[in-house]
């Protein structure tokens, strides 16, 4: 195995595309090193992107924030601006692993790991976040929602590296929230999760909504019908019931050591309902 601390995104992309063997990109490393330890992968090349200038920075951009791919989630959580604008995205990112893991793990890494249960991903997808990628043929932008391809797989092409993620601007009355279910209070992988992002109209009803579920299908799921169910409402009980039902209908989970199909389906609806209420309150909505 070779270790390369790339000095530029270009160097990283070129090294990755030139390598014929197995490669891994090292940002926080909290998934990659676990894979190394367990022997799941034996890379020929590891490219550490943390020494690329600017890649560990958070920069305001067009009313939103550009989050460098190597920004540890603990740093993200300490950024008052991002927390105020996208609290749900940050709470998802901050739920990953322990305090120790938070000191290393990144949203981009969570996305590239390809797990349908990644805690950072539903919030990013609900936020319509855009990833910026450096690849052998240059730079491109890609909605975060289009990156997951299945358990452990992404749509990234060989040699492509995410260098940053843009959290867009949002209107005045907007809020988001993320909830997951785990058996303990910490340290588990989500058994089911839900992110909800809402914008309210001037009348205080929901004008736009995006509901995203995690851990209930091979990738995170954007549940259009669940979002639609909230439009024009103040989240009364009947609307929340329709939201939960739409979420349950969108679930296509597996039975495994972490949860059953029935449990994941049921809790996905519950979490979406609870997350919607939190997002609504954050947006300034009142019932």
């Amino acid at each position, binding site marked *: *195995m*070779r*270790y390369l*601390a790339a000095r530029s995104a270009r160097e990283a992309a070129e090294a990755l595309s030139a390598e014929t063997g197995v490669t891994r990109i*090292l940002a*926080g*490393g*909290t998934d990659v*090193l*676990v894979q*190394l*330890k*367990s022997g799941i992968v034996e890379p020929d090349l*590891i490219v*550490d992107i*943390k020494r690329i200038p600017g890649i560990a920075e958070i920069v305001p951009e067009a009313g939103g924030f550009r989050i460098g791919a190597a920004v*540890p989630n*603990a740093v993200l959580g300490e950024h008052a601006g991002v927390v105020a604008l996208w609290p749900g995205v940050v709470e998802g990112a901050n739920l990953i*692993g*322990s*305090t*120790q*893991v938070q*000191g*290393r793990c990144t949203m981009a890494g969570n996305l590239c790991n390809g797990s349908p249960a990644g805690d950072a991903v539903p919030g990013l997808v609900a936020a319509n976040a855009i990833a910026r990628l450096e690849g052998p043929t240059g730079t491109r932008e890609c909605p975060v929602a289009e990156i997951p391809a299945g358990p452990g797989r992404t749509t990234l092409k060989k040699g492509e590296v995410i260098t940053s993620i843009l959290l867009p601007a949002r209107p005045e009355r907007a809020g988001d929230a993320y909830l997951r279910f785990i058996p303990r*209070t*910490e*340290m588990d992988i989500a058994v089911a999760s839900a992110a909800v992002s809402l914008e309210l109209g001037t009348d205080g009803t929901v004008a736009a909504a995006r509901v995203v579920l995690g851990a209930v299908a091979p990738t995170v799921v954007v549940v259009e019908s669940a979002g639609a169910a909230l439009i024009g409402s103040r989240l009364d009980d009947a609307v929340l019931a329709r939201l939960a039902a739409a979420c349950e209908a969108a679930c296509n989970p597996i039975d495994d050591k972490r949860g059953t199909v029935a449990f994941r389906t049921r809790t996905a609806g519950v979490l979406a309902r609870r997350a919607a209420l939190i997002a609504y309150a954050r947006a300034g909505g009142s019932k």
Partner: protein
Amino acid sequence: MKSIPVSTTINGDPCEFLCAPDETLLDALRGRLGLTGAKEGCGTGDCGACSVTLNGRLVCSCLVLGAEAEGAEIATIEGMADGDELHPLQRHFIDHAALQCGICTPGILVAAKALLEKDPNPTDEDVRYWLAGNLCRCTGYDKIIRAVQAAAAEMRGA
């Protein structure tokens, strides 16, 4: 695999070592530098026994490559006491019987120190969540929380 030379500062002292590209910081600390205070309980970031700080940030040294430590400042349990004077956390852990077997203790002390540097006056719940990545199987955590709070109170008073 060709070894990589790494220059770091460990517990305030400059330190150079060679490590394999796939070698973790934990293995380098324990195997190459004789700093066996950090323990490997899992190797996958689930137990926290290998906790150290890297540039002031609490991490699991099993989830860091040795090569990544180039230019970094690392603090381990071995650097926590000031000479023969124990850190208040260390003292209170002994006085409150916050350790039984002691294998998780170095990691918990390093983590608790990082907490108190960030928040000198945490609630019990803050301490419990901060330390959720440090497994202890002997104590049921009760005396650990009490010891951290006693040390925090002393440090605030100082």
